[in-house]
């Protein structure tokens, strides 16, 4: 974990693009807390379904809301969902992976089977199941993505954790008397971080897509929360009449997911010396 991989990452066009979009998103989300071009919820019956104008660059929707302001305000929901989902996925994934790699021997085999079974559960079905009981909310999206993708992280990082746990410096730390949990947090996790961060970036992408899908089905954010997914849902009924309006929330989601994916891919290349080498061999 040093500046070298950051430089490697930003040197790649995909990584630089991904990082730039993500920084921009966070900035928009922060700014939207104190300022948006117009009130994103203000309706205006005299200016419904406007095309792009100077006052409304993205046009207005069926209630006269300014789409630009709404999309702008929606960034904070997206950023929140992405960050929280990735955090839950990280906790679920690391706990399952650490137990599966280093936990009591009796637990390892059943855990491996359980992870294999849980991977078959798509995030969206988990979310639908939870919202049948808990009602629609962003929390359901976060928990569903966190569990659904956390299992993926567990499978990917289990081997990596086991590998690091067998290295000399970790064994030395154990021999010097460090407890198992401290060893995990101080030595094993920092050295599996590159693998984990890549997965977290991908899980954020999944979360943003899941939020869009769930809000479309009516299980996502409540109406008081600006959400790209629900805006897309509100506008798609009128797509043949006012096609230009639908483009904006759809584009916002696409660019965000693309940024997370590219960022994750570039990060994987930047932090994995084996990948860098195999590529140069291939092009030879």
């Amino acid at each position, binding site marked *: 974990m040093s500046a070298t991989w950051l430089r490697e990452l930003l040197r790649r066009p995909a990584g630089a693009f991904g990082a730039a979009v993500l920084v921009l998103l966070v900035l928009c989300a922060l700014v939207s807390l104190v300022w948006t071009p117009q009130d994103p919820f203000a309706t205006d019956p005299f200016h419904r379904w406007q095309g792009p104008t100077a006052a409304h660059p993205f046009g207005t929707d069926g209630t006269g809301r300014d789409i630009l302001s709404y999309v702008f305000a929606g960034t904070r929901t997206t950023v929140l969902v992405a960050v929280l989902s990735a955090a839950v996925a990280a906790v679920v994934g690391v706990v399952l992976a650490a137990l599966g790699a280093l936990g009591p021997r009796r637990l390892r085999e059943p855990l491996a089977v*359980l992870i294999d079974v849980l991977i078959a559960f798509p995030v*969206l079905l988990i979310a639908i*199941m939870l919202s*049948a009981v808990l009602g629609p909310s962003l929390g359901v999206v976060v928990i569903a993505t966190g569990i659904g993708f956390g299992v993926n992280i567990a499978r990917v990082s289990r081997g990596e954790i086991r590998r690091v746990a067998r290295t000399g410096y970790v064994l030395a730390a154990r021999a010097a008397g460090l407890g198992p949990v401290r060893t995990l947090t101080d030595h094993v996790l920092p050295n599996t971080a590159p693998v984990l961060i890549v997965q977290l970036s991908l899980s954020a992408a999944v979360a943003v897509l899941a939020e869009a*899908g769930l809000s479309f089905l009516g299980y996502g954010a409540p109406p008081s929360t600006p959400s790209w997914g629900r805006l897309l849902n509100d506008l798609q009924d009128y*797509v043949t009449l006012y096609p230009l309006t639908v483009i904006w929330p*759809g584009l916002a989601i*696409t660019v965000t997911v693309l940024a997370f994916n*590219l960022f994750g891919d570039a990060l994987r290349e930047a932090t994995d010396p084996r990948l860098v080498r195999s590529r140069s061999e291939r092009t030879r």
Partner: protein
Amino acid sequence: MLRFLATRVALLLLGLLVAAVLIFAVLRVLPGDVAQVVGGTQASAAQVARIRSELGLDRPVVLQFLDWIGGVARLDLGRSLVTGSPVAAELGQKLEVTLPLAGLSLLFGLGLGLPLGVLSAVLHRRAGGFLIAAAAQLLAAVPVVFAGVLLILLLGSWLHLLPVQGFPLDGWRQPGRAFASLILPALTIGVVEGAVVLRFTRSATLEALGQDHVRAAAARGMTLNRALVVHGLPGVLLSVVSVIGLEIAALLVGAVVVEQLFQLPGVGRMLVADVGNRDLVKVQSELLVLTGLILVVGAVVDVVHRLVDPREREAA
């Protein structure tokens, strides 16, 4: 092989059991009082009590679970809490829409992803190959709803080629119309999932191009492209088989969204409606059938992959 088959079937049964336990635990145990959830906040105490006895909620949880699973094994999925009609019959009817939709989506996804994936690998480091790969990267980021909306705009309304929404009321008795109304929805899922297949095929083909036996064939005088077709692609195709199992889950989830967007009377739309009605008996059976489909297809793909791919057999 027999041993592999036995462990795979055991794993499948275990998977189905775990799925059933999880679904039951979340829908029946997690909410505390299920009768209250089903009845809603407006329900009177008498209504809640009636629902409780109808569902057998006053009996031990384990018995309730065994009842449900026993019924499922006899293809009896219970009765709707709202209409009282049997769930299995309705589900069978909805599967007549969802299964063809998923199958057609898979066809579109493979039809787009396989050839373009190989092409983009062959054109590696040329403008064409880069463009295809970039388009796939972009498409993989498009939410299914947005892809559907764009396709409606492009094909449905501008060109007036295909029906945009709905499904014939008498279903497959009008095969032509029924099929036509599945094309746009299937294309929507197929384009998004095809991007995933494309990226996988591309990296598998790139790997094949660098493999010793393909390079050796090229060194003996074959053109590299011919060497790839003869010696490289069989391996690539077999690797793609293994991702189909994972793709099925994505196809069915895509179907839930797409059925809503295109107003198709399939399992996904049924599930969404039943969640809205808090019809937990139907929801739990629908979720079990969907996850069961994913698990069964995954197992079948694993077995087929093992049968056709010599590398898998040698690895064991």
